[in-house]
């Protein structure tokens, strides 16, 4: 049994939190609770949002309050649902296909490679080797449409976010933040240390199955040259 806390994040949202950990087993539990809640859904349930080690329910109090069998405050009802989800859900081990994502680690795409190299006393080639030698777990999607939070990178390249975020990080940029690695699906401001770029589109609004990465996925990056990057970009678009 894990320790948890349940608390309101507004008058229409509630979170169950297992603490500030990036842990595969906690994340698996959170995903199991999400599927339990999908199977045991209730009217007034608006959204279920999973994160590293927490799960949040967005609900409509007015819809819940209109039900005769639910006593007020409805907050207590949703809280009980979370407790039930915790006790009644069970983690299913599933075989996951490893998704391979090409990344061009050219310095023109990875403007922070030089900084990490001098800060961590490590050659750029080795940064690439270490980043591509681990299969990462996608823990959550957040920040912007389709942004995968993955972990854990080798400690030797774990580096804090930039002190001052960049105004513009290009779509496809691959970054590091502590032991996390992620990919920016859209052009946006951002504070992660950027080490390369993938030609793959992580978020394509014209495709019905929106995301190529989902929580629980296994992801491995592999290095490609600038030439291959262009070839793959053309093929994907």
């Amino acid at each position, binding site marked *: 049994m894990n320790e948890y*806390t349940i*608390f*309101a*994040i*507004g*008058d*229409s*949202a509630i*979170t169950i*939190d297992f603490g*500030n*950990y*990036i842990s595969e087993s906690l994340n698996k539990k959170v995903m199991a609770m*999400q599927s339990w809640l999908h199977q045991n859904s209730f009217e007034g349930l*608006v*959204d*279920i*949002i*999973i*994160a*590293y*080690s*927490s799960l*949040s329910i*967005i609900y409509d*109090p*007015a819809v819940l*309050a209109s039900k005769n069998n639910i006593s*007020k*405050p*409805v*907050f207590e009802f949703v809280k009980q649902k979370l407790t039930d989800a915790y006790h009644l859900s069970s983690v299913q081990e599933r075989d996951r296909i490893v998704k391979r994502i090409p990344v061009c680690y050219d310095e023109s795409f990875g403007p922070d490679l030089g900084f990490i190299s001098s800060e961590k006393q490590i050659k750029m080639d080795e940064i690439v080797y270490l980043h591509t030698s681990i299969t990462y777990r996608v823990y*959550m*999607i*957040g*920040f*912007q*449409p*389709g*942004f995968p*939070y993955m972990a854990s990178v080798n400690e030797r390249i774990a580096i804090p976010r930039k002190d001052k975020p960049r105004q513009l990080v290009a779509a496809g940029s691959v970054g590091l933040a502590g032991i996390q690695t992620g990919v920016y*699906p*859209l052009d*946006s401001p951002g504070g992660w240390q950027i080490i390369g770029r993938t030609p793959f589109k992580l*978020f394509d*609004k014209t495709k019905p199955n*929106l*995301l190529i990465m989902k*929580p629980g996925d296994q992801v491995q990056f592999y290095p490609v040259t600038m030439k291959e990057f262009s070839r793959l970009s053309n093929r994907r678009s």
Partner: protein
Amino acid sequence: MSIVIIKPGILDTIQDLGRNGQGSFGINPGGAMDRLAARLANVLTGNHLNEAVIEIHYPGPQILFEQDALITITGADFTAGLNDEPLPLWKPVLIRKNTVLQFPVLKKGARAYLAVHGGFCVEHWLNSYSTNLKAGIGGWKGRRLEKGDELFFRESNCRIADLFKSENNFQLLPWSVNPYSFYKDLHEVLFIPGHEWNELTSKSKHDLSSSTYTIHPSSDRMGYQLRGNLLHLEQKKEMVSCAVSFGTIQLLPNGQLVILMADHQTSGGYPRIGHIISPHLPKLAQLNPGDSLQFRPIDIITAESFLLSQHNELQILYRACEDRLKKLYADCRP
């Protein structure tokens, strides 16, 4: 059956009550900043509550109506006028084709809403008409309205022209909503203490509920940056990302506060000091940069009963509007 943007405003977008259920994909709800004003604009116009409306910031647009229409403007007072004749807010109005709607002077508030009877024919993406500017999708081509944009609205089963009783450019319908109780004490908002509230120093707790904060000019639909007494936790805290909501008050590393608004990200890793109650988000949405703000704490149980009583009040209003419209339609049926 359309309107044309003759001159765009600074930020006019199509919004509804938000794109729900997509948080786990990193897709935020977005939607109208002032959901109360958006809802009431629709209700007064005889639309579904969640119909697409135009959210207007100041300076506002100039809009040519190419067709007779039944419209309602709610929210901020930008002295809306039709061919230079002033139009009332919170009141349905029949307007004739070939007239121009404009918003010349900012009098009060930050966001006005325009609903048209029948609703706009715009892009429905993941169950919502809301414009997601970041992803460039939903609403009108995923972007703000620009000069020359022609937005169609759906055909009504009621001939608007038959409802006119005079030759005037517009005609007021004989009902309206008095929204003032919803915006009472505009600069004071209630918040539910957040998960890290108890980790604030006692001085910081006191400062938040007793001092005044100002909305910084860098504030937008994503979030309101506040300036005021800096707050501090007893101990610095590193957090992993977790879901956040519309109204979450985050504490930034430099001690300043930001309130997450409609276009907020789905997750965040900053301490959560509190959460503005949803009945007070419309007030917040009507504040401008430079406006001051005071916070008062409330517990979740009291906040919920407040939300539910406001909901019931609105239900009564909706039904009253529906009855009026039904009668009106009965009059115009051939």
